[in-house]
């Protein structure tokens, strides 16, 4: 986690940051943030998490970008309908409901709907 000005952000290493911005904005509803330096790309998701996109064209599949969701099944359904390629079906994990997909440029993403589970008392 880095701090740029007042904002904390995560660094995301992507094969094609510019194309990924298009994908994240148009399909995932992210918003780009104007940066002082044109070579740096900042973006934030609907939950207010900030990301800095970095280029690394030499990795096969970089560390997945974790996208937090309020409703993973709904996102999964919408993205699947719009032709996004999913690596798996939504999985119930101890953290919540999660599903993985890739974009056309080999970047990996995970959608996570965090859930707080009740244990048996």
């Amino acid at each position, binding site marked *: 986690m880095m701090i740029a000005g007042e904002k904390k952000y995560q660094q995301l290493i992507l094969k094609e940051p510019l194309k990924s911005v298009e994908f994240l904005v148009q399909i995932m509803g992210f918003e780009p943030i104007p940066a002082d330096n044109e070579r740096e790309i900042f973006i934030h998701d609907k939950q207010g998490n900030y990301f800095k996109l970095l280029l690394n064209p030499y990795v096969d599949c970089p560390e997945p970008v974790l996208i937090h969701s309020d409703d993973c*099944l*709904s996102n999964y359904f919408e993205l699947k309908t719009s032709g996004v390629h999913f690596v798996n079906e939504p999985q119930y994990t101890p953290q919540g409901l999660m599903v993985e997909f890739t974009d056309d440029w080999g970047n990996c993403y995970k959608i996570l709907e965090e859930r707080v589970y009740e244990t048996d*008392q």
Partner: protein
Amino acid sequence: MKTLKILSNQNKLYSETTSEAFYRDEQSDFSIRMVTRGSEEYRLNNKTINVFPGYFLVLNDGTHYQRKIYTDGPSNTFSVQFSKKFLTDYNRSLVCDDATLMDMPFDNPDAAPGFHETLYPFKNDLMFNLLHLKNHFDKKVSNELLINEYLNHSLMLFYQVYHKEVHVNIERLNFVKPSTRKELFKRLNNVKDYMISNSNQAMSIEELSKVACLSECHLYKLFKELYHCSPHQYLLKVRLNRAKSLLNDTHYPINEIVGMIGFENVSSFIRLFKKIFTVTPQNYRAKNVA
């Protein structure tokens, strides 16, 4: 206000918001029924079950029941009903091997699978998914594929809940004959439903033993074997969870909630709530409302 949506595969979603309703003779598909606010009373198979937030009721395909709502404020109910074909098809995909499913893809048994018609805990993944589905339904989302995605997941999760609450629990009863285990499980389930449905009233072990058709000592011993706590401790848990939901969803003052959940003494309620949940009822409400 009542809203019903019938999908093209005959699965149904139904929600109702009212403080007064009475349906004398209804018949259901297999359905999962929950209340997000208030309560709803069902009468089926000679027993009365009250559904409160935190629990859901399952009704089998073809069950006749009576349903009523008489509450001070409006109650919100929501149910998902699965068509017989959808349910039997899903069940078949679980019990048949791949070869059978490929050889006879359209074979559909006449009888739908039956489940224990009882109260189950409404929590975790099944709760999250059904609340999302209700949210889409309330917003009039009409995409059937999306709704069916939720229904498929919900049915899968219900089977998991059922396995845990029924199959695993039945095995806890230490009897050799499976039929004895099943019968005792059914009777203890009736006691559990009775306690949840009447948790706001005082009840004695003698009363519970009549519900179970078991002697008091036998009931006490078997109840502990099945639920790992005494009937009294179980009732306290039910009341405290009910208090949590009333603290979350209503503005009733704490002393009123104490009366509504069947406690006689405010200070003993506060002490017990703090002991179990490590937070006072006031702070719990402040934290959750904030």
